[in-house]
């Protein structure tokens, strides 16, 4: 697992229009950090910059000692080289592959022997409680099960960082509660560095080690759930979490 270090990171679409601005943050090894804020606050853009799906225009992003993006020196590591797992809001489970093929795909690209792929996939499917469903196609799965396939696919590659983009927003309330606990448990068991994007403060406060509250591309406050709930630094944070 890796640390993620943002140094004055910014993304400017056109001159003067900032999606994210002056973002500096040190995410520690095996830490669970949530980006919390209303829609359009830049939380998803920041997450996608970690993945390499968006390029920052300012500042430096590092994984441990490795610089993955430094636009000033024209350095940019493509997403496929970053070894980052991601669970998308829409799950993004490939409809033309079955559960096994979906989860095995990252391993297949690493040219890992077939026998080992089989074992690794079986092990991960057990952790996400999908054993026995290997041959199912995505359209034969419920939303919650598809979510678990996406999670398994992110975990199986032993990523440096696991990113989750509002993964629970399409699930019903009861399932959401169970998934929160499962995700937190997996994160602690694997000692994963995890970045979690949400607009739901209950979710962020319940699961995270630290929460980053964002608004209009700016970081408003960083702290443990306790700190933020007790001492919101300004009007916006107080309003948003109440």
């Amino acid at each position, binding site marked *: 697992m890796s640390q993620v270090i943002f140094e004055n990171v910014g993304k400017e679409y056109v001159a003067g229009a900032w999606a994210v601005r002056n973002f500096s943050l040190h995410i520690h090894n095996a830490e669970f950090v949530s980006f919390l804020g209303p829609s359009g606050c830049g939380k998803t853009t920041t997450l*996608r910059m970690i*993945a*390499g*799906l*968006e*390029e920052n225009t300012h500042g430096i992003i590092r994984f441990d000692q490795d610089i993955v993006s430094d636009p000033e020196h024209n350095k940019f590591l*493509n*997403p*496929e*080289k*970053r*070894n*980052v*797992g*991601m669970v*998308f*809001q*829409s799950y*993004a489970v*490939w*409809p*033309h592959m079955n559960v096994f093929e979906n989860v095995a*795909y*990252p391993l297949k*690209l*690493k040219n890992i022997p077939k026998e080992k792929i089989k074992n690794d996939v079986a092990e991960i499917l057990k952790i996400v409680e999908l054993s026995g469903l290997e041959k199912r196609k995505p359209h034969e799965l419920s939303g919650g099960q598809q979510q678990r396939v*996406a999670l398994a*696919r*992110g975990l199986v*590659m032993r990523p440096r960082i696991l990113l989750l983009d509002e993964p629970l927003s399409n699930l019903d309330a009861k399932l959401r509660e169970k998934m929160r606990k499962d995700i937190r448990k997996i994160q602690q068991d694997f000692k994963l560095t995890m970045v979690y994007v949400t607009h739901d403060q209950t979710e962020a406060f319940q699961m995270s080690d630290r929460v980053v509250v964002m608004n209009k591309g700016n970081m408003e406050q960083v702290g443990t759930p306790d700190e933020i709930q007790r001492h919101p630094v300004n009007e916006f944070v107080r309003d948003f979490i109440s």
Partner: protein
Amino acid sequence: MKKISYIFGFILILVFFIAPQLHLFFIPKFSDFTVIFVNENTIKAIQNTLAISLSVSWFCLFLAVPLAWLLTRTDLPNKINFRSWFCLPYTIPPFVGAIGWIILANPTSGILSLWLNQALGIKLNIYSFGGLVWVETSFLFTFMLLSTLAVLDKMDSSLEEAARLSGAGPARVFTDITLPLLKPAIIKGFILSFLATASSFGVPALIGGPARLYMLTTQIYSFQRAGTSNGLQMAIAISAVLGITTLVLLYSSQLFWGVSKNYTVAGKTPRPSLLPLKKYKYPVVFVLSLLLFVIFILPLLGILLSALSPVQGSWSLSQLNLNNFIRVLFQTEETLRAILQSFELAFGAALFCTLFSFIFNYFIYRTKFVGRTFAAVAISLPFSTPGTVLALAFIISFSQGIFGVGPSLYSTLWLLAIAYIVKYCSLSFKVLGDAYQQIHPTLEEAAKISGANWRQVMTTIYWPLLKPALMASGFLVFMPVLSELTMTILLTGPGLETIGTLIFQLQEYSDMGGGGASVLSCVVVFFVLILNFALKTFSKGRYGL
């Protein structure tokens, strides 16, 4: 009232959409079919049709799929403009392109042929297998382009992003994820461009004729033109084979390959992350601009040059003048008649199709009347039937009145109008059907509770709500009818000129030296582009290309 309208509409569908084709298919005796398959010319025509259509489909695939990908998944500059320009050939009748390419690349006096021969010693001859395939491809690739663009627009781009994060590079993502998800659209585009080539008439007649390359459609035309009863019998038998093959191919493909099944994510707005082209950006822009120029601009420039040149074949920019336009448009009696009749027919067909689809779609989506699914299929059927086949079916069914009842329709504008309506009603029907499905049934129920009867529901609820779709439906029928050639050439008679047949006559027989066909082609392109632009503007980009 509702029921009577439905039954009346249903009878119209049976008599005009279904019966003529069935009639045609059941006329030939078994012996007629055996004659086709031993006749040297028809065997050659079958071989040509297969070879040309398959080549065109493959070229369309290799041209359109990478193009669709570049237009949706990369940070290509000016993407929106490139996209509308590349889709535009869809609206222009291919025979106009054929005329353009004949001016550019005929072996004796083509501008490009002369120039390439002088500069590089390359001999260009449009009257060839390659020439025919090229001209067809340069228009029909839009079928593949539109069907793949539709899927790429709706495809959740996180499917592709997930693959990148799994460690796949852009090329791998394309082969592992994008291509498999596009498969249904590609198969659909492949079959559509195959069928469109196999049923095309204008291009094979103008280019294949001089090259002695006959396809089934041109073979049917020459048999029918021969005027003998034996000729007509052959034409009917070939039409039956072509028509039945088309239907079988179209519907079996839907059954076997699940062509209608598409993997898309509904209800979310995908926000595609665009692949940066980086150092390839400007080379790609250059190649696409060049491609667009050669495919689309060049033949239109050829037509324009020919229309402005007083002497065809001696190309000189200093001699250009408007004499051809003045002569063809104002001093030729047929021209005005042809333009007026084409506009009348296009307006009539558009009006009728739109009204019919407006009422009949109500029965399809808002009632449980028996046979409504069958009726919906029946209406869409003639659009995929080759125009040549359809025209022949109308000739034999309606020459002695409507199946023997009433006066003969042959050589009347009525027969042309019926043919256009039957062929293009599907376009109108689909647009209005989609629009009906967008309207929640509670709106009608609320009106009924307020005391409205069916007629009032239709006029005060559906008509105003469907207005944009009704307008679009009118345009979509109007545009192809305005320059229709394939059916018209078989159904026309003395004094029944339309823009399409007049262009064909001028090009083939009477005005080789005068650039008359080019003048009228310019007029057609002008009208079509204006109409398309109008449709796009008033519908705020929802319809039109």
